[in-house]
């Protein structure tokens, strides 16, 4: 760390900036240092360190919490790409711990059991940046207002069913487009209806995009899924259970990376989709009873 007094750490620009550098990339869930190594070798732009992938959290049930610091440190030691880790919604002490461990991004995540059903973490208080999930534009803007430096659409984690991810990215994109076409006097009501801060609503209306990077997550399992998210306007992709719950993680991980870069070239997507072995078995979101849907956590 530089000792110069003129250096400014933890600014919004620096926090949002790291997400800008992750664009066009794939962030992969990993539960061991060995998996982190595979992800880095396959071309992941960052890894998400956690104890159980969402598919296992879903099948094993119980309260899901921040991972063991030993596991997170082992993964940080193993790779040189950015390492993210998950804190429970509203659990500001888990976030303090993750910052002290030196993670590069904190995911305040609905995949874990919420610790506070009213408040999210005040993310302005931290030097480390946060990414948060959203199912619609209002939710995204509320998280940004709390200091989130990156947003990901939620999808339905641990299912291998991409339909919810599709729904959420389409919803966010269409709500942004709607704001862009409104006259100035309509934005007051739009802010009220979105339940989002007026200033952020105006900013989105003027720029036609979120003020932070927007990735997609939740149910992405194949190269074509990733490319579809990119064509729908995502800046990049999180892949959770989809890689290490599949038959050939090394090959599938590299294929998803290539399909994300060449998302608009079906011939490349076809080529990388060959012979990947079994995809994760998956669950149809429609078969998941509403109380077990993770996307409904957070508000």
């Amino acid at each position, binding site marked *: *760390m*530089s*000792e*110069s007094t*003129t*250096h*400014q*750490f*933890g*600014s919004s*620009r*620096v*926090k949002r*900036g*790291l997400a*800008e*550098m*992750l*664009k*066009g*990339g794939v962030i992969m869930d990993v539960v061991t240092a060995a998996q982190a190594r595979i992800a*880095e*070798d396959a*071309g*992941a*732009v*960052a890894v998400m360190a956690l104890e159980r992938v969402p598919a296992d959290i879903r099948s094993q049930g119980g309260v899901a919490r921040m991972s063991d610091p030993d596991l997170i440190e082992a993964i*940080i030691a193993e*790779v*040189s*790409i*950015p*390492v993210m880790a998950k804190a429970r919604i509203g659990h500001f002490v888990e976030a303090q711990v993750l*910052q002290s461990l*030196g*993670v*590069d*991004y904190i995911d305040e995540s609905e995949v874990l059991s919420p610790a506070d059903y009213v408040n999210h973490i005040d993310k302005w208080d931290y*030097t*480390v*940046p946060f990414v948060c999930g959203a199912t619609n534009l209002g939710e995204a803007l509320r998280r940004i207002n709390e200091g989130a430096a990156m947003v990901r659409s939620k999808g339905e984690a641990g299912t291998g069913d991409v339909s919810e991810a599709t729904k959420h990215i389409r919803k966010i994109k269409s709500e942004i487009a709607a704001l862009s076409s409104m006259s100035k006097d309509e934005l007051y009501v739009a802010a009220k209806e979105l339940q989002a801060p007026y200033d952020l609503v105006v900013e989105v209306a003027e720029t036609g995009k979120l003020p932070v990077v927007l990735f997609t997550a939740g149910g992405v399992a194949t190269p074509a899924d990733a490319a579809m998210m990119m064509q729908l306007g995502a800046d990049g992709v999180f892949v959770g259970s989809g890689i290490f719950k599949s038959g050939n993680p090394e090959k599938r991980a590299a294929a998803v*990376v*290539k399909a994300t*870069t*060449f998302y608009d070239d079906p011939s490349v997507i076809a080529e990388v989709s060959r012979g990947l072995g079994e995809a994760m078995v998956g669950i149809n979101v429609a078969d998941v009873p509403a109380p077990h849907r993770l996307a409904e956590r957070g508000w």
Partner: protein
Amino acid sequence: MAGSPQGHQEVAAGGGGPVGVLALQGDFREHVSVLRGLGAEVVTVRRPEEAAAISGLVIPGGESSVMDKLSRAFGVAEVLKRRIAEGMPVYGTCAGLIMLADRIVDGIRGQESLGGLDVAVRRNAFGGQTESFEAELSVPVLGDPPMHAIFIRAPVVAELGPGATALATLDDGTVVAVEQGNLLGTSFHPEMTADYRFHQYFLQKVAGFDNGTARSSRP
């Protein structure tokens, strides 16, 4: 033309083909937008044939290990190495600086670079994201005022070879901007600010390259 401090008025690329921005991963859209704003014709580059048809290249910020892998897997690295040897101007920011370095310290297993700059670059030299920072940085070749430089998990020039020239250093002497002939690299991200003097400096090199000063020198 290394180090010649000329005027930094707007300069568009000449007739030798558009300027490319490597678009495998990272903040390439921001560079495209900056270069277009400066009047250049800009294309994105992901494939060998695209790399063959440009008169200059910007390599954006992002994850250098990912750019390296994809550039080799899709054959664009090979063409870019040849273009760099021909003298084509290239400007790399952050990950782009790593891609241009002849030597990488702390790369991932098997990581390669395009090379061209006679330097060793250290990845993530300041540490993790909580050590990312903004600072005012004097860049003599660009004149006053200093640049507002944004360092994000940034690399630094750990060793400066005799072929390369430092353009900017932090207070402790760490080299964070470097030039060698038509190649430019910065540890930081001018594309995230409104100060595009490095991009203008790069486009001046492109204009010189288009005029044939470098292109015909080597086959």
